[in-house]
């Protein structure tokens, strides 16, 4: 609990399946904040008992049978426009995240005072829409000042801190969480952490392994009794599958006694080999993302000094073996569940106003240096020499933040009256317009009677807080059109052009 005169800094790992909170303690070190049930790890779950009564966390997850009003894994749908019915209204992933964060904030503030600054972690390949939806959820939860950091980067900070500032060299951070997978290459020198490149898979995590395990158990049930396992008949659910997965991490096989209403006790033996065979496609995806990050960064694996693991799913032997196979190094597994939250708390100390910190906190965290990169390719649509529309990248993924890039384009026709200003985003460098996400499209009026080839200067900027700004400037008139991409907080979870200014 922060003492008087100390900053209350939170790091929140708002995960797909679990949420973990850490704060900077009196000595300036990150410590995990136990939840209202006294646990370090809180299930990310929201249940509606009525339109007004909401239950959060473990209790909500235990109510998961009432699937209509219990929501889990909503993080995967952040920024997508998905919504669910609940007692006569529709709730979005943004609403649910806001409820989760509000509960976390209220619990953290009880007895410790208001939060001065919170850092929320997000997957490295979260779209801008998802990032903005997360920020909006934090605002609705009453968290005043909020920053965000990519999950693998936060884990790297935690490892660098745990090494006592002795980390030196290039490291890979392999973060297999409950719902998403990220891998980052970071250069560390003591507490100076610089992100080199990052890749992510939005739908790959422990939850997917649990689904495969459920399938194996169902097949075992069918083999034993000759009938399908029906939901009302047998109570083996997702939480049981997760528990079974944990047991299979240390044992070659586990005998499960399923309780069926119709068939009584049904014993099923689940072997680790069966789980590994069923999940080889998932593990191979993580391997490809790792190879991709090395490939894109142009770095040979022999240049790595080590590999850090984060996320509970990294405990699976098959996953650790895959990491060793890809990077050629024995990975370091140190408290993988809480590494991301602890790193986020350290980042909060780095971003906080130094005047807020106590002398001890300042002394312990002053050495933190941090360099992040652009998480996506950002560009605009323009016509090539053949008159075909193509995506023209302006800010490349991996450029150091803050970044600002300018390119000049030219009008295509004489007497062109309208300039269509578009902002695109993609995880890979794409020229095909159908393969990129169009995040904004605005038409700018141009003066009449001018010949073709009038220069238009396009400047894209991306700041440390992930705010993207695009300026389209007609050099003939000197009039700029400014597009700032932010969520308008409509609750739809989609990214909106928050501000368009035509000077």
């Amino acid at each position, binding site marked *: 609990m922060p003492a008087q005169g100390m900053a209350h800094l939170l790091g929140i790992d708002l995960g797909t399946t679990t949420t973990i909170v850490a704060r900077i303690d009196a000595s300036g070190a990150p410590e995990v904040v136990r939840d209202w049930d006294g646990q370090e790890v809180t299930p990310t779950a929201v249940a509606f008992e009525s339109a007004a009564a909401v239950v959060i966390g473990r209790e909500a997850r235990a109510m998961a049978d009432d699937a209509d009003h219990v929501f889990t894994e909503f993080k995967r749908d952040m920024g997508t426009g998905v919504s669910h019915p609940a007692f006569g209204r529709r709730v979005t992933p943004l609403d649910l995240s806001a409820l989760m964060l509000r509960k976390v904030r209220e619990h953290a503030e009880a007895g410790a005072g208001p939060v001065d600054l919170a850092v929320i972690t997000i997957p490295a390949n979260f779209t801008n829409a998802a990032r903005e939806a997360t920020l909006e959820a934090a605002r609705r939860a009453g968290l005043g000042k909020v920053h965000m950091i990519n999950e693998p980067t936060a884990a790297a900070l935690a490892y660098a801190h745990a090494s006592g500032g002795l980390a030196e060299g290039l490291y890979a951070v392999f973060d297999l969480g409950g719902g998403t997978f990220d891998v980052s290459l970071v250069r560390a020198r003591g507490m100076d952490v610089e992100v080199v490149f990052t890749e992510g898979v*939005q*739908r790959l995590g422990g939850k997917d392994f649990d689904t495969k395990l459920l399938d194996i158990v169902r097949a075992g049930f069918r083999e034993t009794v000759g009938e399908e396992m029906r939901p009302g008949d047998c109570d083996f659910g997702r939480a049981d599958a997760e528990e079974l997965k944990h047991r299979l991490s240390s044992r070659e096989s586990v005998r499960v006694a399923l309780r069926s209403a119709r068939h009584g006790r049904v014993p099923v033996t689940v072997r680790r080999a069966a789980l590994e065979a069923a999940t080889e*496609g998932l593990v191979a*995806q993580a391997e*490809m993302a790792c*190879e991709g990050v090395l*490939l894109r960064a142009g770095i040979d694996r022999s240049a790595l000094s080590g590999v850090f693991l984060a996320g509970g799913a990294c405990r699976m032997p098959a996953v650790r073996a895959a990491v060793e196979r890809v990077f050629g190094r024995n990975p370091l597994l140190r408290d993988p569940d809480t590494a991301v939250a602890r790193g986020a708390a350290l980042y909060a100390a780095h971003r906080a106003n130094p005047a807020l910190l106590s002398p001890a906190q300042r002394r312990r965290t002053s050495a933190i240096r941090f360099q992040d990169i652009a998480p996506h390719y950002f560009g605009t649509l323009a016509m090539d020499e053949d008159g075909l529309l193509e995506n023209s990248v302006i800010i490349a993924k991996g450029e150091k933040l803050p970044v600002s890039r300018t390119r000049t384009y030219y009008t295509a026709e004489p007497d062109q009256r309208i300039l269509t200003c578009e902002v695109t985003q993609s995880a890979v460098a*794409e020229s095909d317009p159908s*393969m990129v996400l169009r995040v904004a499209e605005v038409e700018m009026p141009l003066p009449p009677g001018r010949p073709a080839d009038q220069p238009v200067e396009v400047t894209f900027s991306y700041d440390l807080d992930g705010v993207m700004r695009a300026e389209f400037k007609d050099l003939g008139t000197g009039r700029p059109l400014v597009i700032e991409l932010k969520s308008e907080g409509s609750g739809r979870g989609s990214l909106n052009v928050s501000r368009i200014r035509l000077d």
Partner: protein
Amino acid sequence: MDPLVIAAFTLTPCAAAAAWLLLRGKRTRPAPRRRARSHTAPLAPKGSDDGERAAWTLAKLAGVPPKKAAEGRTVEALLGTAARKRLPDALEREFGVRPPDVDALLGLDAARLGRLMRQLKRGSKARPAGRRRVTTAGEAIADLPPPLLALASELGLRAEWELPKAREHLTKEYLRQNARIHLAAKAEDRDAVQARLEEIGRLRRALAAGR
């Protein structure tokens, strides 16, 4: 009896029989009916490569010139519902091996379909038992189910590529496909992308065999 009469009675039937036999051999036979084109005969001209053979097959079914079928249009774009049903038979005639479900072929153009059929043919051949050294992508994925072979073809994986090159190509394609999940507006579209990514993962696992 006069010996001459006896000889005449004896030799006449023999001479008649010999003459009948001789004449029968010389009779003109009706010309054999020209056989209809064998149902096993391939369509494409001799010397065609796999892509051309696939293009000829598609062209025949689509009722378009083979050149048109080879222009990069997919099976889905070329063939209607009825023609798609006939596609497995036609490909079996041309390549000597039956393809997987038609649905798995819809995204392929003629060149990729040709490569897939060659891969299937290769996979259908009996191989000696025991471990052998796998050096090419084709050998590594030969035992995979046909829908995965179709996917490999669709992703542009070449059977003759050595494993490191094939793995690198697949990694690039995986990252490209992975980026598509952000473009999927509906939940079912995102599920489809996710399923596809997992299939690419299974391909990758097969390519790791020769690591």
